[in-house]
């Protein structure tokens, strides 16, 4: 199946470069548009549109880095920065707004209580997104 619009949520984890490269390779045959999005989660004691300098700097940096990786892999990543109370809800909404046909989520390999851990954001996007969701889990050795 050829995807035309792929959303890549980026959290700044070690898996981000792999996910961006994967998105480029999936999107290349159909010349898909790639959207990289980072969501700054705002605590409930602050207004939703509060200016959070440190988080903005971090977000800008990781988006710029992802765009560079995409360019090196031969693709183009349009980046966007969001602020929301919950990252998952914003990812689901932006995927709907952008009419994406695939959300490509990255998961760093982590274990908790003897089981491989899947974050709540991944879980909620998986359950809530209108389109296809592909979760890429990092190799155990990494």
């Amino acid at each position, binding site marked *: 199946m050829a995807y035309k619009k792929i959303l890549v949520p980026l959290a700044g984890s070690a898996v981000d470069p792999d996910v961006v490269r994967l998105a480029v390779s999936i999107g290349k045959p159909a010349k898909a548009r790639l959207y990289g999005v980072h969501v700054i989660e705002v605590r409930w004691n602050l207004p939703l549109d509060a200016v*959070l300098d440190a988080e903005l700097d971090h977000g800008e940096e990781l988006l710029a880095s992802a765009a560079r990786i995409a360019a090196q892999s031969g693709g183009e990543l349009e980046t966007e920065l969001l602020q929301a109370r919950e990252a998952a809800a914003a990812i689901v*909404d932006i995927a709907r707004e952008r009419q994406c046909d695939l959300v490509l989520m990255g998961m760093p390999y982590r274990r908790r209580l003897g089981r491989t851990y899947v974050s709540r954001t991944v879980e909620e996007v998986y359950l809530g997104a209108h389109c296809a969701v592909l979760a890429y889990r990092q190799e155990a050795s990494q």
Partner: protein
Amino acid sequence: MADEGERHGRAGMDRAADGSPLEERTTRTGALPGNRYVRIVRPPEFRRGRGGMFVATDEALKPQTSAGRGYELLRRILFGPPISTEHELSERLGVATGLGVLATDNISSSAYSIEEVMRVLALAGTGALFLTMPIGIAIIVVLGIVIISQTQVIRTYPGGGGSYAVAKHELGTLPGLVVAGSLLIDYTLTVAVSTAAGVDAIGSFVQPVFEHRVFWGVALIALIMLGNLRGVREAGLIFAGPTYIYLLAMLGLILFGAFHIFTGAMPPTAVPPNPFPSTGTEALGIFLILRAFASGCAALTGAEAVANGTPSLRPPEARNGVITVLLMGSVYGVVLFGLTFLAAQTHALPDVKEQETVMSVVTRTFVGKGAYYYLVQISTSVLLILAANTGFTGFPRLASVLADDRFMPRQFSFRGERLAFSVGIVALAIAAALVLAAFGGSVTNLIPLYTIGVFMAFTLAQSGLVRRWWVRHERGWQWRIAISAVGAFATGATLLIVATTKFEYGAWMVIVMLPLLVLLLFAIHRHYSAVADALVIEDPDRAVLRPTVPIVLVPVARLDLSAVRALGFAVSISPHVRAVHVATSAESATIFRSRWERWSGRHLSDGREIALDIIESPYRALLQPLLKYVDRVDERDPRPITVVLAEFIPRHWWELILHSQTAFRLRWALLFRPNTIVIDVPYHFSAVGREEEAPVRGA
């Protein structure tokens, strides 16, 4: 969720939104009730940098018009893509490339310095050429002293500026500026002499080049300028290769020649087209010998280039600088000694008309006119030309240090898109081309001007270091002071010899130019100091003063949309607005007044009316009556004057020639008028003649 939320940047400290026009925040409602998120949208021309600052992206640099895009493409082809400031470190030079860039002048001097010695000695007859070898050895000894002194300069002042920095900090501003002036002159001469010598070397085997040497010299300067405008590293990559080819060719020639000499298989010595006669025109006296030594000391120019350009080397700059300067001295010493030895052993004669170089004669003697001959000649020519690159490395950097110290125009400290000091590079190219043309492209004519500056710099820098070690008693000061004192003495003595012996042959020009240049540097500094004093904010706590409401004058040539727009703006900033019209005849004045009176827009909403003054100019002059009118208003009214100019902007730049540009000329005329603010209200014209919204510019 906790760790995921943290990675997504959960809020810490908050501050109020700053409402910057470069960041738009829109709150959107999500699909589920209660879901909201904020989109942070930035224009593509800017991205957010650290600490809430904005950084202009490549998009901001993209030209908007097709002419601009064409110009940009041409610039990219000539100079390459822009390099961002954060990549400055990767643009630095390593030791190997640094040697190729910073040492070309010094190393290439070996190609002609010994010839200059021989040309002076030959004035006393070819028999006097037996002194070539002893003078060559004396030059190598001075070179050794200079090189050791330079390592001290680099270690003490790794921040660049070389001899200028040492002299300024240790001896004071005046000695510092003397050094700076000397080096600026010398770098200019380096470019001129190197290019002339390179053209001469090519002219040795391509006659048409010799016949048009000024043209070819200027063309080569332009070419090297372009290479340098591409940035230090790229220039280094272009210019380092020929240095190593030259060194290998020279070492090969020296070894081959030495083998012939020591095995007694000396081939017959080649003769240049116009050899010096065996009988001389001057007596072989001490003055002539010293003059020959002074001419050969041209070989030492460029030895200061590494100290001056240390910041262009990779970290640790000082260590790399010292390695580079030691390598340069060693390699150069070997080549100079080898060539002097070959020239002395073969009894090669210089050419009276400079048609063939001694190097060419020596090479021809050993290898004939085969492929190796051309390799030597071409590599020498290329290196001599590229030696000019040392000037292009040193001059702009020194000029930037002087500009930072406010002794040269600030433009010299500005780095272009390729991180090169573009203004300094272009200024040097122009100056060197003028010098080259003025001296007819002759190396022999240029050489007497050369070397005074560099020895002045060496002497003052070493004297400065002597003072430093003496006053500060830093670690190892005893041996350091000994080295610097020997250096100061040796270079000072050489300076005296060079200045005395070359005075009547052209050195006087440098001796006259130098104080004038120092005065100019002082004058520039005085201007910048006065400006800084005038502009300084003495009380940072003082609130911004609200200016008095001005009297606004609006020159109106014709009552059209452009004028109406300017008048509208004028009444928005002050209630005291006067329109002024300069009429070229009584009839046109009457016509304008009747149009004005028919125009109801002159009546303001509060019942007032825009005042109109009509000036008839019987000689049809526009600017002078207007300027006098502004003067008279200013005399009678204590309020500041603001002149609002209606300016019609055509759709294409070439349509400007169809309009008189009176507003432009008036703005220029009012630029230097005190107590006057000039505001330009542009009226942009589209193809269909409709008004486009345009911002108001203040001038």
